[in-house]
């Protein structure tokens, strides 16, 4: 058991990060190459200025009309995406582990605060799931995979929360926590989570078509 834990906390972390970053890099290179081969016109239309203009406009909370029309969803979704990165990166116990391995560290979130934020992430995921059941147009689009994706993201946060409080089976929960965190990293490049890479690209393209050719706003 100990050697298994050593493995998932050591080499497996490396493997996960390599697959995550490597996978996204390969995907990006693949997309750029395919654009050159099959749709080179895209390079004639995409401009840095209009790409950034559009991505920027869509990053400002409640700026696009779409966001103002669905403020609850956008508000929750916005916070959710921020927390998704913020909580794991600034969690004291994660920083301790990194410090042990690399002798680097950065300021950590207060444990209590992190605990609440973790609950926030879980609540947001529950909201997404409920919305998939309750809102007809979302329900119509939803398939089993959408719930699987929600569960996958929820797992590391839920187990992290339980592990922190050490209420039950601490050891097992920790193992699941580590494994599910690694699993999420590994599947990012191969699932719709890869929108973390493709969304800026599609937005950049649409932003350029609107800004450069259509000379209109796209938000």
């Amino acid at each position: 058991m100990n050697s298994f834990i050593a493995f998932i906390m050591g080499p497996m972390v490396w493997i996960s990060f390599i697959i995550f970053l490597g996978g996204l890099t390969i995907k990006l290179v693949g997309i750029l190459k395919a654009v050159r081969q099959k749709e080179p016109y895209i390079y004639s239309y995409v401009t840095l200025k209009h790409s950034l203009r559009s991505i920027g406009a869509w990053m400002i909370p409640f700026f696009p009309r779409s966001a103002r029309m669905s403020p609850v969803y956008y508000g929750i979704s916005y916070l959710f995406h921020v927390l998704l990165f913020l909580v794991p990166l600034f969690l004291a116990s994660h920083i301790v582990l990194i410090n042990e391995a690399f002798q680097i560290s950065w300021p950590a979130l207060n444990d209590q605060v992190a605990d609440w934020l973790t609950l926030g992430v879980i609540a947001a995921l529950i909201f997404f799931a409920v919305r998939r059941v309750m809102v007809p147009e979302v329900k119509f689009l939803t398939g089993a995979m959408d719930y699987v994706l929600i569960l996958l993201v929820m797992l590391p946060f839920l187990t992290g929360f339980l592990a922190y409080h050490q209420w039950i089976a601490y050891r097992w929960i920790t193992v699941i926590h580590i494994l599910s965190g690694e699993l999420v990293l590994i599947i990012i490049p191969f699932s719709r989570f890869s929108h973390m890479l493709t969304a800026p690209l599609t937005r950049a393209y649409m932003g350029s078509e609107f800004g450069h050719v259509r000379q209109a706003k796209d938000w």
Partner: protein
Amino acid sequence: MTDAPSSVEKPTDPAIESGLDRLTPDRIRQVIQQVLKNETGPRFKAYVETCMRCGLCAEACSYFLSNDRDPQFMPAAKVKNTIWEMLKKDGDVSKDFLRRAVRIAHLECNACKRCAMYCPFGIDIAYLMLLVRRICHKLEITPQYIQDTVNSHSVTLNQMWVKDDEWIDTLQWQEEDARDEFEDLQIPLDKVGADIMYSVIAPEPKFQAGLLYQAATLMHAAGMNWTMPSTPGWDNSNMAMYTGDNEISGRIARAFFETAARLRVKRIVMGECGHAFRSVYDMGNRWNSWVMPPFEVVHALAFYHELLTQGRISIKEKYKKKVTLHDPCNVSRGRGLHDKAREVVNMVCEDFVEMTPNREHNYCCGAGGGVINCGPPYKAERMVNNRVKAEQLAATGADVLIAPCHNCHSGLEDVIQHYDLKMEIKFLGDLIYDTMEKKIYEPGA
């Protein structure tokens, strides 16, 4: 505003039905695979893989809003019901599936691209629907009426089977009539080296010759050095662009630009049409490998703006009735002309009220993207599918609706009639013609 979607009978379209009869499962699979694999690339892949099924695009679509938020009409659902299924089955889809797919792509989407402004990822569902139309075209199941306009384009290079002599006759007849107003007015044909080639869509000579008269008056009064081509290539409309017949669509745009090149004009000015503008400013040029159009293409809205701000045309007395303005997708969302349009309206009219939402966010007229061109059999459902537009218009309390686009104009005329709105509908050119000083511009005067 009564009609429920279920009350609309779905017509059978002879072209779709006979096309479906001819199809075999093999042929269906081949065509779908060919288009989805060979004619698309990473853009398509990214759209399909990136969509998070969040449903935010729903708010964008006038079809969804008009049909009491029926999920079937939301943008991503149209992709689910067509493309996702084709991909899942690798092209092995049934004829019933295709019958539904044609309707979705041709009659339940205006290709207006409003949804691209509501999807956080900017997924272009209009592009995906045009891809479905491309598949339908290759399967030869395009709706009958719009296919007929493409056939006309293919034979005559204009949309309405206008014969070459009919075209010239119409221009001469309008020239003659307009001489009542200006005795030396001319519609100069094939004047090589003129500054401007003026171009229109085929319905003008066919049904609305008065618009040619008005345009000629405007050009003459403004003292422009202009010309119109007497040969095919005069029509800037392009229905093939909307049926996925890219080859013919490209031919039309090419003939158009070649005509301008033959006349060695400096720029092209076109009448109040949205889709025609999209064809020569955005799509047709691309098919012919021009990143941007090889000529400066000036839509009527921008041209009016130029004439009025330069003082080439002056307004005698502003139009009095309360007017509102419909922003045609293809020139507002498609070319950002909405601000100029407002300036022109304010220069010409006394009492202007906005409809909301407006500018880039305006609802489509429900006729564009080739929908109205699918013909009378589909008019009833078109009216149901555009209830939000009627509500939007009614809320303005305006007496006159300005619709500076041919498709919008016809579509909105139907909407006004169907929903019994007490409104007149006009082109912006109509109002300028009515209010302008009928005298010839003299520089420095």
